């Protein structure tokens, strides 16, 4: 385009680039609705609720549906499934949550939450229960 001044030429180039990017976005496959990390955990939420009662999580946390769970040391776990982060640090994916329940200090070294002796298998069920608290 020899008849266009340099500024207009640059503008044309920019518009072409933007158009191309828009086309590329439309052509991409839609994102998987379930993030890959969530696929690993398939726990039984009802069993998880009983395990949470048994491990006395309610001594430190207020948890809906758990008997006598009115602790004030830790944060309330109401609507935990809607939270973005575990302990304000770790992205709240079920796998990470299960690991957190087994050994909190392995993810957040200075946490006040103790490792209660939860097995990885039990943690999957507990994570399933906590994940569906919306």
């Amino acid at each position, binding site marked *: 385009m020899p008849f266009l001044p340099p500024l207009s030429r640059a503008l044309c180039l920019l518009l072409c680039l933007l158009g191309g990017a828009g086309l590329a976005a439309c052509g991409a496959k839609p994102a998987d609705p379930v993030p890959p990390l969530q696929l690993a955990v398939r726990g039984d939420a009802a069993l998880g609720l009983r395990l949470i009662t048994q491990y006395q999580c309610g*001594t*430190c946390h207020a948890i809906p549906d758990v008997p*006598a769970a009115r602790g004030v040391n830790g944060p309330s776990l109401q609507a935990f499934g809607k939270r973005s982060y575990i302990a304000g640090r770790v992205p709240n994916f079920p796998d990470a949550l299960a690991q957190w329940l087994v050994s909190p200090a392995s993810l957040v070294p200075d946490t006040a939450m*103790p490792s209660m*002796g939860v097995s990885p298998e039990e943690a999957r069920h507990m994570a399933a229960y906590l994940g569906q608290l919306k």
Partner: protein
Amino acid sequence: MSSPLPQQLQSVLAPAGEAADRIGSLSWVLIIGSLLIFVFVMVLLALAIGRRKGGRTVHTRLWVLGGGVAFPVVVLTALLAWSTARTPGWMERPPPGALVVGITAHMWWWEMRYRDPASGQEVVLANELHLPAGRPVWLGLSSPNVIHSFWVPALGGKMDMVPGRVVHLMVQVDQPGSWRGQCAEYCGEQHARMALHVVAHPPAEFDAWLAAQAKPAAASGAALLEEGKNVFLAQRCNACHTVRGVAEEGKLGPDLTHVGSRLYLGAGTLLNQPGAMAHWIAHTQAVKPGARMPSSSDMDAQALAALAAWLEQLK
């Protein structure tokens, strides 16, 4: 081995060793010196007010240069030289013969680490600093969380405990006795209930005390005590607390191997007398709100009594 409780409130003016004595005498010099200067100025003021017209005057320049420049320069320089000469120097490592104790400040309690001379193993204790009288003690101070400050007025000055650093403080007490100290740097909700007690023993008694503290918890025979131990494990107290010989994985809270031998519970919060243990376990958050330990108010009375009885006899 029962230890007497401190006989008086903590005070800078009641030193128990050389380091505190230096601070005590410096305090007295400052108090008496400033009092003398104050009285001198007040007398001058009274003379100036009462001066009759036409009486004898002192030249202004003498007051400005003498009282305003020369006097403070001489007094403050002398004080600086004297206090500098009495300030303990920095030491790269503990002097030979000194007892080394590691103290870690947690939120809100103190962890004490001794080296058992018999086994060479580290012995972890809490909230009480036991010392042999007449022997220098090197305290290695650190913090894993926020800035705390170690302050036992009878032993010496304050020393800030800065996260990521080990700072030291040399102390020595002359006579057996016990004193109170506390955290002197605001460190959170329960800063005010972060106290510690210092107990100085005659050297032989100290060695016996350390040997006893190095031992794991004694096996209990009685049915009630056995039940108490089972409650400790069933309630998962061991998730945070270690009782050597019973459960040793919990490191978040104070070591309870010999908790029954301590003067106080909860870092100087409750006098360790009959009934205090059960009260502390059931009402932790009422006694020390915000402490990391939850109140176990839902535990049934029989289990609580057994647990408290077992912990109380861990001496």
